[in-house]
């Protein structure tokens, strides 16, 4: 006779309403997948509209939660596993914006490729849910679950263009390198657990606060921090962990590249903020120099190597590495006051940069997706010769996105770059602020190179041939690029509301 154990387990309380932005995305993904598989192909744009609806609903719920958090202060959910604070909601909204814009682009893209189906959209939604879990995790294991959910969906998406071998190649490269970096992250989490006795960020912080420095397992913990930084630096594609980026972005379908460059990086930066600034402020003197070097190398590698590229998608990939450098400048300046009650202007500047960057990078890849026609391979710089005479409106939009990426005033890019550099100067990180501004001059050259190719060079034989069939696009692509361009200019002219909202990103749930 087995003795009946006394029931000691009580499940954590689950605040379903607070989790609703996440639940909407997951439910929409599953519903889309099952309904899409059981019914004949939906009318054009049907899958994309459902996806945009789900992303919008999730963003609206996140805005409502934003109000609640502003009133009641940050807290944690599901027994301390998920943090419920303004920065989690800000990253949620940013990722939802990315999903909505990319879903519209994907509809346009899939119609040209005659590949329509619900799978793309369901994977976007699942990836977004994973990204939100990453950015709002309050437990390192939950963070890892988010990383895997996001990454697995992205591996499949990168290889989703079944007819192009380059897409398959990109998916496989991303899969092999990505799982390698996930292993680094997991090993780092394990070592931090070994050193502190918990994976929960709250308990890690409490342990580090209460223990005497001599009693800590510093070697174990610092090795763990280093390994976690390797894993996350790979996910944000910071140099020197950037080598996969150009190949993967070039091979993946253009809308998927846009999604990886936007939502993927936003989520990974959210996770980086959680791990470094929230969980490990006591070791900031150890990890801050590492962030400094990552920022420096990303800034230089991204801008200098972009200059010699001849493929627009590769060029945008390198420019995204340069942008990562800028965001890391923001993280570096946030590090100065990590752990304080008011963590200073660093994290708000990171938030603004990521939102502005998300919109303009999706717009840029969207124009490339339309310009590269049905085969998705006319992405060399030469194929953009005389683009302005073929598609003047698209060329204007592309010019706006490129100027924004260069940081020209009256665009969101200027506000974003100004924010991180200002934060760095405020915290007296003059050197990295100066380097960031210098590399943005180098980077401006490459954006101008595309603009000059579009507007000033005569079309040659090859690009005249491109002017033929297959360049048309549907209203969804136009809508997505129009919204992105509108946002880029609007934030550039009236930035106050966004800066005010981001100013509240300084308090974290602990």
């Amino acid at each position, binding site marked *: 006779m087995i003795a009946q154990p006394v*029931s*000691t387990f*009580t*499940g954590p309380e689950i605040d379903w309403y607070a989790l609703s932005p996440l639940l909407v995305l997951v439910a929409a993904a*599953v519903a889309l*997948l*099952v309904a899409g598989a*059981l019914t004949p192909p939906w009318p054009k744009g049907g899958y994309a509209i459902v996806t945009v609806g789900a992303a919008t609903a999730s963003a609206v719920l996140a805005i409502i939660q934003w109000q609640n958090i502003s009133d009641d202060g940050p807290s944690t959910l599901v027994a301390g596993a998920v943090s419920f604070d303004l920065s989690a909601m800000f990253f949620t909204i940013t990722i939802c914006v990315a999903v909505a814009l990319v879903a519209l682009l994907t509809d346009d893209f899939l119609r040209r490729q005659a590949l329509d189906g619900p799978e793309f959209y369901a994977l976007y939604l699942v990836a977004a849910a994973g990204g939100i879990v990453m950015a709002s995790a309050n437990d390192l294991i939950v963070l890892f679950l988010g990383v895997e959910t996001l990454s697995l969906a992205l591996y499949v998406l990168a290889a989703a263009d079944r007819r192009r071998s380059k897409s398959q190649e990109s998916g496989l490269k991303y899969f092999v390198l990505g799982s390698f970096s996930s292993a680094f992250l997991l090993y780092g989490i394990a070592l931090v657990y070994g050193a502190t006795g918990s994976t929960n960020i709250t308990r890690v912080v409490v342990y580090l606060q209460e223990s005497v420095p001599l009693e800590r397992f510093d070697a174990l913990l610092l090795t763990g921090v280093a390994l976690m930084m390797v894993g996350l630096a790979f996910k944000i594609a910071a140099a020197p962990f950037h080598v996969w980026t150009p190949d993967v972005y070039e091979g993946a379908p253009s809308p998927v590249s846009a999604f990886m460059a936007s939502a993927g990086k936003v989520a990974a930066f959210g996770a980086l903020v959680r791990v470094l600034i929230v969980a490990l402020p006591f070791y900031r003197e150890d990890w801050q120099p590492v962030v400094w070097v990552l920022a420096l190398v990303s800034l230089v590698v991204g801008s200098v190597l972009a200059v010699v590229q001849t493929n627009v998608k590769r060029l945008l990939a390198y420019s995204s590495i340069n942008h990562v450098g800028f965001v890391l400048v923001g993280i570096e300046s946030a590090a100065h006051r990590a752990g304080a009650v008011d963590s200073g202007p660093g994290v708000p500047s990171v938030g603004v940069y990521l939102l502005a960057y998300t919109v303009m990078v999706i717009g840029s890849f969207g124009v490339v997706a339309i310009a590269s026609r049905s085969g998705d391979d006319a992405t060399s710089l030469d194929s953009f010769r005389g683009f302005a005479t073929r598609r003047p409106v698209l060329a204007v939009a592309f010019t706006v996105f490129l100027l924004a990426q260069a940081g020209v005033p009256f665009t969101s890019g200027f506000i974003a770059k100004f924010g991180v550099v200002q934060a760095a100067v405020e915290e007296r990180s003059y050197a990295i602020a100066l380097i960031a501004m210098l590399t943005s001059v180098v980077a401006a050259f490459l954006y101008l190179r595309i603009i000059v190719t579009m507007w000033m060079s005569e079309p040659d034989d090859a690009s005249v041939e491109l002017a033929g069939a297959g360049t048309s696009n549907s209203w969804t692509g136009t809508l997505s690029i129009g919204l992105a361009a509108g946002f880029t200019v609007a934030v550039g002219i009236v930035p106050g509301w966004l800066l005010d909202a981001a100013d509240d990103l300084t308090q974290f749930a602990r």
Partner: protein
Amino acid sequence: MGQYLPIIVLAVLAALFGVMTLAASHLLAPRRPSDAKEAPYECGIVPSREPPERFPVNFYIVAMLFIMFDIEIIFLYPYAIGRENLGVYGFVAIMIFSVLFFLTFVYEVARGGLDWGPVHRSRDLSADADIVSPERTSASTVRHVGLDGRPAGEEAA
């Protein structure tokens, strides 16, 4: 460091065993090579033809189904044993898990994961409207052999 000693000893023993086995077989084994032994995937029989280059990959979808059910069982058995202690929370959690699992199963079957044999795709016939039009009957399209139904005068031809 003392607690790691068994692991290090085990690693050294494993390495020694590997090296010694290789060395022993190198020194002791008689060498009588033949075609059958040199062939890749040697099993004693000389392959008579090249293996087929393309093969159906349906098996991997079945393997995926197997893994799905495997994972569900892995979670269901511990739940079944600990059900009384886990209470309502455990029940809700396992229900969410089961529903998600079932829906992915529906997806796979609906996408043809269990369809075997040659692929039958439904085809849109609107492009072939003139071929399948009701005007085309066996009388209008098939040339009859013999004199029945032939217009007069064609007999000579």
